[in-house]
């Protein structure tokens, strides 16, 4: 029984690992191909199956006039927008989550849970629903095609996540901790930043991680709301989708775009192993 189980377990894990890794391996292989290696027949291993070329990678830093996509600037734009929006979302979301976890709000039929639901429900909206209104909105306030405009929009995308994680987290931090701080002479703000915040690091890490992920992978808003001044990485990469699709450079850029978040994966795993996150992620 247990032998079979162990076998099945390792089989399944191996299978899934292969499944997870396969597209990446394929992307790595494809990134060294050219038109012929892609279009004539299926090839896998450089040198053995096809003559590798670095063109796919070179394209990423070449100017478009030479058939390249210069992804350096979009890369930094993406990092800037994701981090800024995540930071703001976490600050505002954490404050709101604290309020929702600690205080009672009543307004008509609205209670704490309804407000929390309002926050989280923003995730229900598909980007398409908001894209045009946001376009008009940003153009009215003059933030179209700007990093700041994207940050504003991403806040809507990310704050629900921060609120969702942090409300749960604060609900598990004993209320008595803040009460003690109040009794010890802190006003509510001091109690929050001197006592509650330092004890919420795991929650903040999780919230930050999710914000960064969901900010980084957004395509739609970045696509609709920018023109020439600002471009984010996914838009730049998708713009490679010409009628003759350069699979090689798409593959290379896919790999490049995943890279920074792999670091996030390592951080998450590290915290998981240390047991710090289990409390924050229930």
């Amino acid at each position, binding site marked *: 029984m247990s032998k079979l189980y162990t076998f099945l377990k390792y089989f399944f894990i191996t299978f899934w690992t292969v499944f997870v890794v396969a597209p990446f391996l394929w992307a790595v292989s494809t990134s060294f191909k050219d038109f012929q290696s892609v279009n004539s027949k299926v090839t896998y291993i450089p040198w053995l199956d096809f003559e590798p070329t670095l063109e796919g990678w070179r394209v990423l830093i070449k100017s478009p006039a030479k058939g390249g996509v210069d992804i350096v600037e979009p890369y930094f734009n993406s990092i800037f927008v994701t981090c800024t929006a995540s930071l703001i979302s976490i600050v505002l979301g954490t404050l709101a989550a604290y309020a929702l976890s600690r205080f*009672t709000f009543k307004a008509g039929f609205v209670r704490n849970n309804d407000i929390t639901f309002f926050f989280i429900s923003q995730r229900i909206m598909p980007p398409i629903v908001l894209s045009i*209104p946001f376009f008009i909105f940003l153009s009215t306030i003059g933030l179209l095609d700007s990093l700041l405009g994207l940050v504003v929009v991403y806040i809507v995308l990310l*704050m629900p996540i921060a609120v969702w994680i942090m409300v749960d987290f604060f609900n598990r931090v004993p209320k008595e901790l803040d009460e003690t701080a109040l009794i010890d002479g802190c006003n509510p703000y001091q109690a929050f930043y001197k006592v509650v915040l330092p004890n919420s690091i795991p929650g903040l890490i999780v919230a930050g991680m999710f914000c960064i992920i969901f900010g980084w*992978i957004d395509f739609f808003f970045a696509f609709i709301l920018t023109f020439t001044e600002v471009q984010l990485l996914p838009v730049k990469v998708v713009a490679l989708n010409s009628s003759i699709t350069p699979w090689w450079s*798409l593959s290379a850029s*896919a790999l490049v775009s995943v890279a920074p978040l792999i670091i996030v994966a390592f951080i998450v795993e590290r915290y998981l192993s240390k047991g710090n996150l289990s409390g924050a992620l229930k």
Partner: protein
Amino acid sequence: MNFKHKFVFLFPGLFVLIGILIFPIIFTIRLSLSGWNSYTPEMNFIGITNYIRLFTDDPRFWESFFRLSFLSVTTVILQYVIGFALAMMVWREIKFKRFFRVIFLVPMMTTPVIMTVIWRTFFHESLGPVNDLLGGLGVKPILWLSDPVIAKFTVIIVEVWQWTPFMFLLLLAGLLSLPKEPFLAAAIDGASPFRKFVYVTFPLMAPISIGAIIIRLIEASKIMDTVFVLTSGGPGTATETSSFYIYIKGLREFQMGYAATLSFTYLVIMIISLTIIAKVLTKLMIKE
């Protein structure tokens, strides 16, 4: 504890969110009552004409909605089952535990639109590796993207690949926070691994599961990037989902007014059905 200060905590976030959203929402509702399209781009008022059209004469939307329900429910169930299984496997000691954990998390970190392009080449029926390898095993080429039924499952495969890690992460964190006594007790009672799972692990994980499933359903209901890149809703309309249909109506055909109608209706349906699902799940799994 109740202070006037509580508003200072809540309001910045709430008002920023409302401030950013109030215009878009009102705009969408107003837009849905107009006939704005590519040739008459104006906010005229046509009453509920669009809604009548939607409810009487747009089977494609409703088909796309049921298709979406099928796709999101299926993917979420699969993600849950696989995510749970994976979490169970790397929960306790196992060789290369940390390596596997990182690997299992990675797909979540990839941008769907970009990754799906890779998937498209991956599943390319004549130039992709999948059919080639299957061909090596003597399997006939499978029409991953061009068979109306199989294409749905290809979308599901990609979605499962992308988002199982999310489930996995939440469930693994949940498992790591479980007390160990119930498992000892079950061992002492002589429970087989199967029984242990059914009567101990699963019930203990129920609350965490519900949270994870709901969140994933919310996210899965927006499924669009994958369909967009992988099949463009085809073959036929076989993989067209609601948000993709709204996208087509709005940004391809530029029937903005009608797209707003679709959006608003969709939102209302989603909020209602997700609330019901949440309630039902809680009932089913926790049985309070």
